[in-house]
């Protein structure tokens, strides 16, 4: 993957571009709808799902509240199991460690299991600079990599590509990266998957070094856990001689037994399955089985910054299931690229500012990429209160801009809202004005939203125009709710 998210425009601009892409919107709506239905069915099957969520949240909280102790335990257990433990403060350190291991074995390529953390640190680009090719082996990642594209969904990174586009990419690009696609390739998903199998198998069989992430790291036993579907994970974790796993420090689970609720929560929330096809666990080196040289890189890269935030800390509970993406009305319409980060959707809107800190315009726009509807919290298997963290981060962003000479549009809008909401009479007055505006806009608005509602399009004027330039607002009703209630005595007249 040669493209990165660096220098992405702020969410509003990127979202406007994405919204105009109807193919993308169609694919996303289909995909998120399908996953939502699957998830709902397998979640309903579990009699004590809510208790299980509480347990999952409690396990991750317990891990985070004493993270130092658990990290030291993890290091000791891994070392006892024959693994080499490295620590990396940031992306550059982590990439350098992986490159050093690869170079020590004289390889010019590594195979990779899909891992968000290696995308976060830009590992593929860093290795490329050292002359080492990193082959993505997850089907979706392969599609993204061959298409010289960016992933748009945690779970289904190529959710924005349809089968015809994928066939095109395979025919055009596979030959340059290794075994070409067969000339008679059709766009049947089974045939496309078969082509990926053939293309990647030669790479698996010859690979000396593999790179993975981990879904969980058990402090007590030094066990790493990788959850996957296709078997490319098993290939990477089993066949090469050397394995390097990059693990965010928040992946720690204190004990082996506490893995239980997380393994029950993740697949149902993620792919909507009772269990994912393959889960691999390993604790260091097993003589005669799998890689005989095992490295683990424990990565900070902003996690301790998030940990220090009392409200935001809960975001580190995230097990990257992507349920919050699939229920998010904003994500469903804009897709993942608009978030300008490997972590898109509701979790991305809080995780990116927490990891990076506020101050950068792109990051600062993310906490506003939400309608605060709360669907993400309901879906989250570890009960991260995303709306609470969003509101908290918005206030941080506003605080960060206190000294700006030109106030941020959102800050103005929020201040006006706070002023209006703080007094019922003022709220009534504002609603009357917006009702009036609604009547005016009702006459001029041309666009129509799905369901036949009129869209207001952009509202002119400072502040409001910045807000609405990225949002096609439904035109306000001609009469406010309060005015209607008064006129009709709550519908009785």
């Amino acid at each position, binding site marked *: 993957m040669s493209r990165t998210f660096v220098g992405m425009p702020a969410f509003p601009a990127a979202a406007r571009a994405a919204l105009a892409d109807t193919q993308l919107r169609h694919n996303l709506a289909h995909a998120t709808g399908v996953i939502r239905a699957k998830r709902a069915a397998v979640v309903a099957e579990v009699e004590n799902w809510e208790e299980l969520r509480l347990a999952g949240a409690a396990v991750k909280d317990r891990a985070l509240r004493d993270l130092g102790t658990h990290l030291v335990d993890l290091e000791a257990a891994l070392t006892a199991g024959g693994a080499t433990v490295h620590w990396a403060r940031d992306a550059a350190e982590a990439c350098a460690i992986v490159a050093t291991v690869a170079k020590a074995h004289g390889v010019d390529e590594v195979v990779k299991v899909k891992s968000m953390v290696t995308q976060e640190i830009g590992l593929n680009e860093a290795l490329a600079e050292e002359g080492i090719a990193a082959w993505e082996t997850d089907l979706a990642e392969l599609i993204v990599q061959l298409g010289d594209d960016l992933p748009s969904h945690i779970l*289904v990174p190529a959710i924005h590509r349809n089968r015809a586009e994928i066939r095109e990419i395979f025919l055009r690009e596979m030959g340059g990266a290794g075994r070409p696609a067969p000339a008679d390739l059709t766009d049947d998903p089974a045939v496309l998957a078969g082509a990926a199998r053939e293309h990647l198998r030669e790479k698996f069989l010859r690979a000396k070094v593999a790179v993975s992430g981990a879904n969980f790291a058990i402090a007590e036993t030094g066990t790493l856990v990788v959850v996957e579907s296709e078997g490319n994970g098993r290939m990477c974790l089993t066949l090469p001689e050397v394995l390097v796993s990059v693990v965010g420090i928040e992946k720690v689970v204190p004990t082996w*037994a506490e893995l239980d609720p997380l393994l029950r929560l993740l697949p149902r929330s993620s792919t909507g399955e009772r269990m994912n096809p393959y889960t691999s666990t390993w604790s260091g080196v097993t003589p005669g089985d799998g890689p005989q040289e095992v490295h683990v890189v424990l990565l900070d890269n902003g996690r301790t910054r998030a940990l220090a935030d009392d409200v935001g800390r809960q975001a580190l509970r995230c097990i990257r299931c992507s349920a919050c993406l699939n229920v998010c009305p904003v994500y469903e319409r804009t897709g993942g690229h608009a978030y300008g980060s490997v972590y898109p959707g509701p979790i991305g809107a809080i995780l990116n500012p927490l990891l990076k800190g506020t101050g950068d315009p792109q990051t600062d726009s993310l906490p506003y990429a939400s309608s605060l509807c709360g669907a993400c919290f309901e879906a989250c298997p570890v009960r991260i209160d995303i709306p609470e963290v969003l509101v908290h981060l918005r206030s941080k962003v506003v605080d960060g801009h206190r000294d700006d000479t030109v106030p941020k549009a959102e800050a103005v809008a929020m201040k006006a809202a706070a002023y209006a909401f703080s007094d019922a009479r003022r709220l009534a007055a504002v609603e009357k004005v917006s009702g009036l505006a609604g009547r005016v806009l009702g006459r001029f608005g041309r666009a129509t939203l799905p369901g036949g509602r009129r869209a207001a399009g952009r509202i002119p004027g400072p502040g409001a125009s910045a807000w609405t330039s990225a949002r096609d607002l439904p035109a306000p009703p001609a009469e406010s709710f309060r005015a209607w209630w008064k006129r009709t005595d709550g519908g009785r007249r």
Partner: protein
Amino acid sequence: MTSARDEILARVRVALAEVEPDREPVVAPVVTARPDVVGLFAERVADYRAVVERCAEAGLAEAVAAALPAGSRVVVPAGLSVDVEGAVVDGADGRVLSALELDGFDAVVTEARVGIAETGTIVLDHGAGQGRRAISLVPDKHVCIVRSDQVVPDVPDAIVLLDPSRPLTWISGPSATSDIELDRVEGVHGPRVLHVIVVG
């Protein structure tokens, strides 16, 4: 210069200065026991579009032979409790098959450590009769023998039985992907056919 390790641990200490640790492990809720766990296991494995059959101990050798198409090249681990005619034993005479050699086999027959009814999952701990991880991965067909007394109701029951110091492979159906327009397709890199024989 402080090491990355010391600096990260120091940052963690600062971040959590006011936070009280919670020393009691969390115990997750369990589900109400179901009457027929072996039946449920078979049903749930089949839901993943795996082939599932049940047989008596006496009929096992026959069931295994029938699961392997005539003429297929078969690899088995040392210590398998059933004889598979013509199969190559991995590690026999101290010769471990390379990944490339494994790619030349059509099928593998192994046993398992535990079966999980609720999720239709088979867990291998790669002990005797199961072999190292590579042999149940590279061939395209995996015939897996699970004994009915190895089947437990749910994930927590399996976690208690499993030894995390061993490598573990949890298998729930054949390899699959939904990466292309969310159409589930069986078989990308792992075995494309999973054939489970439940004994007893």
